């Protein structure tokens, strides 16, 4: 087995988890799986608990999520989502699934976590790595308070109203700040997309 050489072979590894997922899909590679587990396990547990799951349930969801990662790695498409987003989505789905079971809702037995998280393509003419890079860069520079708002909304799954109550920031402000962050990222992606064209077209000055 050449498991150990897998990561060294690549001259420039952008996101080691993309390769790890490929290795799981192609060779059922346990080392890659362990690497993903060690990295994401504690993070997922933290996410699940911060969004209201008890410890035992959180660990159960981590286990089930990792199981899906193992069996569904061939569904992962690096063009559609970064590995962390893909794994996050699986965990979120699993959490909903477990919650639903616990409520004994009158639904047929749907294993919603098997739904591959389909995330839309942005326009094709922008490099995917570039796109993820833009999002990362923007979020890295975001003031802590604002990142905190996003975290409360997306990770802790608090409603805008709840966030307003906790932070004592007016509801309208919360809404606009969250929306603005997303809008800004989109603008940047759009701008980046336009850049290659500038060489060919005459530029109009505003």
């Amino acid at each position, binding site marked *: 087995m050449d498991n150990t050489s897998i990561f060294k072979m690549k001259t420039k590894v952008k996101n080691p988890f993309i390769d790890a997922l490929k290795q799981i899909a192609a060779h059922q590679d346990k080392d890659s*799986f362990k690497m993903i*587990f060690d990295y*994401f*396990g*504690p*993070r997922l*547990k*933290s996410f699940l608990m*911060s*969004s*209201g*799951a*008890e410890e035992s349930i959180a*660990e159960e969801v*981590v*286990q*089930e999520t*990792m*199981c899906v990662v*193992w*069996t569904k790695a061939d569904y992962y498409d690096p063009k559609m*989502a*970064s590995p*962390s*987003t893909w*794994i*996050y*989505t699986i965990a*979120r*789905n699993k*959490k*909903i699934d477990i*919650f639903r079971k*616990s409520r004994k*809702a009158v*639904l047929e037995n*749907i294993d*919603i976590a*098997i*739904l*591959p*998280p*389909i*995330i*839309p393509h*942005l326009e094709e003419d922008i490099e995917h790595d570039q796109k993820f890079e833009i*999002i990362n860069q923007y*979020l890295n520079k975001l003031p802590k308070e604002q990142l905190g708002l*996003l*975290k409360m909304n*997306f*990770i802790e799954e608090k*409603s*805008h*109203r709840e966030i307003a109550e906790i932070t004592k920031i007016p509801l309208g402000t919360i809404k606009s700040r969250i929306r603005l*962050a*997303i809008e800004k*990222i*989109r603008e940047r*992606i759009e701008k980046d997309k336009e850049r290659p064209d500038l060489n060919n077209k005459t530029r109009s000055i505003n």
Partner: protein
Amino acid sequence: MTQPSVTVARLLFQQCVAASSKKGNSLEFIRNEISGYLLEKIELAKLNQNVWTKTLISISSSKKDKKVKKEMIPDPFYNNLPLVLQEFLSNKKVKWKNFSDVKIAELISSYETDKLELIHVMPGGSIPQHTHEGIENFLVLHGSYSDKYGIYMEGSMQTRDEDHDHKPIGHPLTGCIGLAYTNGKIKFSGKFSKILNFFTN
């Protein structure tokens, strides 16, 4: 556990919208990526040792699963549906209710919150005048339909509420297949605007 703001029906609908919209719903993409980013930056929780062991045990017994789920229904109708929906339908029977010009299959229904239905309008057929309980989001999966407000092509999504009084007609040649996500009264006050924003963005 607090109740998640997402339901199975809503999630599935969103995923279908995302998969169907040709231009790409970039806002939804960004939202997801933000979550992924935040997951990487989150403070670590200590995971019990036995979780890894349990995971290993469960993956060794879950291999059979894989093959079962790979089976797709060999029906051109299903093959044209978004992948997420195919997966969802792969191990269940779709019960169609027949009306004169339209067939409706209820995929998910939860009396207290929301409902997801597959709607098949025959070529040239029309959906009888109907009222929407709450809001209805309709995603065109195949073909097109029109009403007095406009013509709606594959991949587009419309939001209708009680104020919309319309009689949709399926395209004379292709008819129309669509996915309808209806959100009941319960969501009206709080979540209503949130969901609307979500979908129309």
